[in-house]
């Protein structure tokens, strides 16, 4: 007769075994690629890519769900296996000062080192590349496809590209040689050494500044603000064109005083010509019960940014609100936008039609 204790023990073994079988069968489906930015530490591997600094024993995977210690070596499952590949308008990233009206070949691999409760792409970002349906796309194929699709740039986007930095670096290097611009859509939550190396192959970046408050960063995103601010200043120093996106989440990051502080910091540290996009939140993922950001809140935030003398302030996701680019000197509309459609823009030189003021960006 089977005793209760024995039965429970057997069930436990069964659960463990079934989990291992599932994990092994998933692991078989992929190829690992050697990862950079790590060192050995007391027999384990210490990942040095992002501020989490995961210490991984053999067989363990980092918080990003992509980097793993296999026999004392750090490897990544996020290489050449995107689960999302689309041709998007560059305005969708959003990047308003980069080749307006052009298309960007956009690639996304699963994985992220943050845990944003409002993530719009959570099925990708909160999964490992082992769990998603992927295609095989080596760097050379990605570049060839981008050229074939008549795209002017190649964008690393959708989830968090810094956790598949090896693929971004290899692809971006080839893309630049082929005359394509390279675009990074990131939260900027990365250590500065790898980020500087990444910036060497990146032309422009959309960096999320999710809020200007450490507690919000911790509770909403499971991250910290300091590394993000460092990434912003370093990107600027490295000559990467940056545009900042601030998603205003009701009850979380809609404090106008905080927004004012953020605008002041941007002006002082990055310059008044840095474009700032205020984006509207729509209920998603774990914050599915929250109401969308009212348009008035976005409008108010834009007004504060203007008061703080930021020259290029945009309202994202809200039709009929500031999305045109105007000359900060004479007020002439330089780029007229209607959603993702661009009607009229400064091509080539990037200077104002009337006062000839040079507008910063990639034109």
């Amino acid at each position: 007769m089977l005793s209760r204790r024995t039965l429970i023990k057997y069930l436990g073994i069964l659960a463990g075994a079934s989990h291992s079988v599932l994990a092994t069968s998933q692991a078989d489906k992929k190829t690992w690629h050697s990862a950079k930015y790590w060192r050995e530490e007391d027999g384990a591997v210490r990942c040095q890519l992002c501020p989490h600094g995961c210490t991984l024993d053999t067989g363990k995977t980092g918080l990003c769900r992509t980097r793993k210690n296999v026999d004392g070596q750090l490897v990544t499952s996020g290489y050449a296996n995107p689960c999302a590949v689309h041709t998007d308008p560059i305005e969708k990233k959003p990047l308003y000062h980069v080749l307006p009206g052009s298309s960007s070949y956009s690639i996304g691999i699963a994985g992220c080192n943050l845990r944003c409760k409002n993530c719009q792409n959570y099925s990708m970002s909160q999964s490992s590349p082992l769990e998603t349906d992927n295609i095989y796309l080596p760097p050379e194929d990605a570049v060839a496809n981008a050229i074939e699709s008549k795209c002017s740039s190649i964008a690393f986007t959708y989830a968090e590209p810094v956790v598949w930095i090896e693929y971004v670096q290899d692809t971006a290097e080839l893309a630049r040689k082929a005359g394509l611009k390279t675009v990074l859509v990131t939260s900027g939550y990365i250590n500065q050494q790898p980020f500087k190396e990444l910036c060497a192959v990146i032309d422009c970046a959309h960096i999320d500044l999710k809020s200007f408050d450490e507690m919000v960063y911790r509770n909403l995103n499971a991250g910290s603000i300091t590394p993000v601010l460092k990434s912003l200043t370093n990107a600027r120093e490295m000559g990467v064109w940056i545009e900042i996106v601030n998603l205003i989440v009701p009850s979380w990051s809609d404090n106008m005083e905080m927004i004012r502080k953020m605008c002041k910091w941007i002006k002082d540290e990055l310059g008044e010509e840095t474009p700032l996009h205020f984006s509207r939140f729509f209920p998603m993922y774990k914050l599915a019960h929250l109401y969308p950001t009212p348009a008035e809140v976005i409008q108010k935030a834009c007004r504060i940014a203007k008061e703080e003398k930021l020259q290029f302030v945009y309202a994202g996701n809200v039709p009929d609100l500031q999305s045109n680019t105007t000359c900060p000197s004479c007020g002439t509309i330089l780029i007229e936008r209607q959603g993702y459609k661009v009607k009229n823009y400064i091509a080539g030189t990037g200077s104002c039609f009337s006062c000839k003021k040079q507008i910063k960006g990639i034109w």
Partner: protein
Amino acid sequence: VREQKAMAITFYGRIWQPAEIAFITGLFSAAAQVVYLRELFSIFTGNEFTFSVSMCCWLAFTAIGCRGVFVKKCTYASLHLILLLHLLLFCTGIILIRVFPLVMKPGEQFSPHLAGLIIFLTISPVSFLSGLLFRLCTYNLDGTRVYRWDNAGNLAGFSLITICILFTIPHRIAIVSMIFLYLPLLVNHRWKLGLAVMVLFSIYFLDPVSARWKYHCTISSIEYGRSGEIGKSIDGSTVWLNNTIYKTNITNGHIEQAVHVPLSIRYPGSVLLVHDNGYLNEIRKYKNTKVHCIEFEPLLADSECLCTTPERIPENVRYDAIILGSTIPQNLSEGRMFTDHFFKLMKSKLNEKGIFSFSFNVNTAYIDKNTKQIIEITKYTLKNCFNYVKLFPGEGVTFLSSDHPFSLPDTSYVPASYYNDYILPGVSSEMVEAFNRDSIKSMVNKVGHPVLLTSSINRYFQMFKIPAIYIFLFVLIALLVLIRLFWQTKDTISIGTTGFCCGLYSIILMILYQSQFGTLYSAVSMFMISMSTGFITGSFIKSDKFNDTIVLVYTLLSLLLFRFFPGLPEFTWYFSNMVMGVIVAAQIVNSKENMTQLNAADIAGGVAGILLGGVYILPFFGIEGVLVMVFVVKVLPFFCVWRGGIKPS
């Protein structure tokens, strides 16, 4: 003598009879159960998975209380204490349910772990005491009579709640009435009575305030409707249904796409909108278009939206377009609008060239496996009903179906900034092609086999990274523990398997009802009333003809009836549930075993039936799977008798 003394609760000199105590505690417990279910239903956003878990938790702890596993004896003083505790814990549980959303971050959903913990913390103490009180009543009275009076109390409790639901009376009135009816049991104990009265007043004044704690923003009113709890913001612009946003006046890309894609195929002369969901403002942009908006929930209907169901729309009325104001189905009440039955009903209301459309609000950059499965099942179910089906991916996925050929539009007839300026430029032809590519043959989502529900449950667990196998093992272990504890003799096995069939039958009936009518939130008490009526009636029957064979035959036949005739009137559903109650009670009261053992075995079986039926068997295998399960389980007592290896009763 001690047992008799234990039951000696007096009311101005008169000794309360155990049957009367059983009646009052039964009333209180039944009403408490429904109030809890409704409160939990609203904080867990109408998720039926948590509904099944809550029911199981209630029954499991009642069974444990009934067995008196932890408390063997009860003294005069402690019986009063148990009665008082019962009352206090119930009120604390209600407040706790409302406090939990306060400790969550603004707008955050409950994870399944936390949902389980909340259910356990709030429900288990009260249900345990309910079971224990039943056991105490049987100390001094024939078990059959206690069983009968307890069920009569249940019936009264369910009736009380039903009246509150029918007249949309707030929960506080129901709770105060329940406490008031409990007070006579404590009347001779001043401090206990005083405490109970204080609780009564506190809950009366605290209820309207605490009900608002469930919402993360300021709510002006809370109403209790047929399909759930309805909250409205101060300016009336935002309406919440079961704590999720039902509609706001803030338009977005998803709504514009859901409205303008179908209406831009052919300029519509008439449109039927099923559920406003914020779509109505967009449809109003089409001048000279006749719009009919219907809501199933009376409290959501207003001057612009009529409260009715599509079945009640006159035969001769046809529309150029029908739009379902919905999003990706996450529970049964939403899932029922994506069955072949409902699609065919919609088709019957369309003109020859009419378009039927709805949208799922998902991110189309990458669709995960569960969402893909939901999309494929829906597409395949539509193809089963319409000749032409197309999908438009943008801000979510819009499904379009018609019996007449059509092409996807490239602009809208009316101004729509999101749709024209954001969505259309962002959608490539490759993307449209990928979504419309014929994939592997999927399954049709039917009322009797809601395959979509499985994917929805998986999607919910996946969001919180919980592997389905762990849930399965947890359920399995829980069942084995219950069976080991409560099914030990021939009679308890017989009654336990009957309880299993009864629990399974009841939950399947409720799920099917929800798939059919979508108003389980209000109908749950009617189901319980019918079951209790059955239990009382059955407890008067003196005949050993009500055996395992009758239970098996009735369960199989009546489930087959609902399988083949899903559109039966509401009354039939309650009546069938009542008949099941009669059969079960008749079998219990005619068994030789001790009543508390039988009651515990029956309830434990009910837990097993609800857990397996609601969570696994119906979603995965459909009604056919349920029938097989019933057959296998009910054959068990015969097998035990044949083997002769079970203790005699």
